């Protein structure tokens, strides 16, 4: 892979090439017969000592708690409209004010964590499983499979991911399932690229030559021999993609093709209230926006610390 491969989110290339070195170092350690388990445990300790990881994890955990138990502790029903109390400024009763249909903004922000934290991990998981399979096949089999899949990946990634996701969601109509499948599928193409690069480096190593000489089955080589050695880059790719999945879903919701109102959702709430910004009603837009910001930044802090631990 040259440094020039276009991807919708350009950081992917850089992350990929940076991470591949991490992946091979794990592979090399395995070859040296050092206990892989001990290395993993040391890495985990290192991770827990990293401040960025802890900060990120605490924020994500907070939103997960909100997503699961939010409805139990919010002061108001998040979808209860109140036309006599619309656009109220933040006060003791309504901490974050009320929006243009009189819903309590604080309650909506808390409960709004639910849908995005359901869709994003599912989509990322689908993308990772599918992408790993495609990437393993491309990298190990090479030849026609590699070339044809590579061309399709290039074509799909010739558009910004938000737009690819958007035309498919428009075509089949927005629903949770559509979002998971569309984003998972688009992300699988990017993940396939990273995995392919990692597999190409593994391919040159002796253990694969040995596997070929032993005449092992292709699937066995791909999933039992190679996969454990490229797990590092895949893990990093998973966290990076999770951040982008939230980015993409929030953006689609903002554009009107993601989670649909009246379900509380940060992106959709920004979309339905930003028209009132000019009138000075900033609270109904700002708080959901800050919630999105805190979640994506937290996930990227986690991804960043995992990456730096793996590369060492």
């Amino acid at each position, binding site marked *: 892979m040259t440094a*020039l491969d276009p991807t*919708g989110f350009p950081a992917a290339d850089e992350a990929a090439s940076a991470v591949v070195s991490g992946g091979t170092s794990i592979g090399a350690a395995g070859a040296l017969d050092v206990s892989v388990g001990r290395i993993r445990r040391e890495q985990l300790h290192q991770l827990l000592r990293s401040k960025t990881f802890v900060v990120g994890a605490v924020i994500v955990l907070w939103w997960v708690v909100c997503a699961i138990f939010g409805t139990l502790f919010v002061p108001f029903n998040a979808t209860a409209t109140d036309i006599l109390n619309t656009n109220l400024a933040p006060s003791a009763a309504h901490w974050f004010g009320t929006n243009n249909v009189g819903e309590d903004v604080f309650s909506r922000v808390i409960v709004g964590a639910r849908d995005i934290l359901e869709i994003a991990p599912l989509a990322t998981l689908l993308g990772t499983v599918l992408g790993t399979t495609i990437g393993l096949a491309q990298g190990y089999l090479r030849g026609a499979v590699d070339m044809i899949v590579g061309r399709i990946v290039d074509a799909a990634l*010739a*558009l910004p991911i*938000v*737009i690819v996701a958007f035309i498919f969601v428009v075509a089949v109509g927005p629903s949770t399932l559509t979002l998971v499948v569309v984003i998972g599928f688009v992300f699988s193409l990017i993940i396939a690229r990273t995995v392919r690069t990692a597999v190409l480096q593994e391919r040159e190593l002796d253990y694969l030559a040995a596997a070929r000489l032993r005449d092992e089955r292709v699937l066995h080589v791909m999933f039992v021999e190679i996969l454990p050695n490229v797990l590092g880059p895949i893990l990093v790719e998973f966290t990076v993609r999770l951040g982008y999945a939230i980015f993409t879903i929030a953006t689609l919701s903002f*554009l009107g093709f993601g989670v649909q109102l009246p379900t509380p959702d940060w992106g959709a709430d920004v979309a339905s209230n930003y028209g009132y910004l000019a009138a000075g009603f900033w609270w109904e837009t700002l708080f959901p926006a800050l919630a*999105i910001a805190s979640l994506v930044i937290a996930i*990227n802090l986690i991804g960043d610390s995992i990456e730096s631990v793996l590369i060492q």
Partner: protein
Amino acid sequence: MLLYVLKRLGLALVTLVLLSLIIFFAGQVLPGNAGRAILGPFASQQAVVALDHKLGVDRSLIAQYWSWVSGIVQGKLGTSYQFQAPVSSFLWPALGRSLKLAAFAFVIVVPLSIFGGIVAALNRGRVVDRVISTTSLSLSTVPEFVSGVVLIVLFAIGLKILPVTANPPSGSPFLTQLKYLILPAIPLVFILFGYIARMARAGTVEALDSDYVRTATLKGLPRWVVIRRHVLRNSLLPTITVIATQTGYLIGGLVVVEKLFTYPGIGTLILTAANDKDFPMLEAGVLFIGIVYLTATLIADVLYTVLNPRIRLGASE
């Protein structure tokens, strides 16, 4: 060299054909019956059939794809369902306005991020480096509409120094127009800053660690001469290509920013088309975004080859 350019061009064309197939599939096959989508559930079956025939969507898929593609090659982008007028009369002005906003964002972000990346690299491992790297990483992961909202609240509502929308009163002078584009451009700048600064930092760090910089330093050259003459030249190479590939991303970001600031560019065009189920407009808009992206990537590839002596002279890297 020429062979390489031709090969890249050929690959780009193959990608373009595949892209057109994907768009055609999403725009024409998946949504099902176009006549029904336009007329709604209460229209009679007869009216739907008549409209389908008029639109040509009752023909075979191959015939439809062929007439769509051959039309585009001849510069005929089709007729908008919604406005009953040629798509091109909407597409070109919108594309022009988007390019204006994009160019403005580029003019701000390119010098700023290269400078930031180089400063971070020269202070590698110190506080300045960590602040620049962490801030830029965080900024580039926040969706454009999120940073846009925060900016509007701060500068348009709190401080009241910049307008809330991107549309100046008609006939405003150039500088006033730019003032209206400042807030919409900043979210794009945030995202791009992270990528370009990262690349510039990585390139500079690599150059700083190289043998030729060591030689130059040991030769007794002053530090700033070493940096200007030996480091910068080499570190900017990968940065240039990143800048070119960012053009594609930028157009995606425009969709979001244009909606937030109600700016009538290509993003607003495809969003409106999607809401109205105006598929000819949507397909043409998305296809042109793809074409702009492919062109930018092609230029980036070729530029990298031209600028990199190791590739230019045919040696393997």
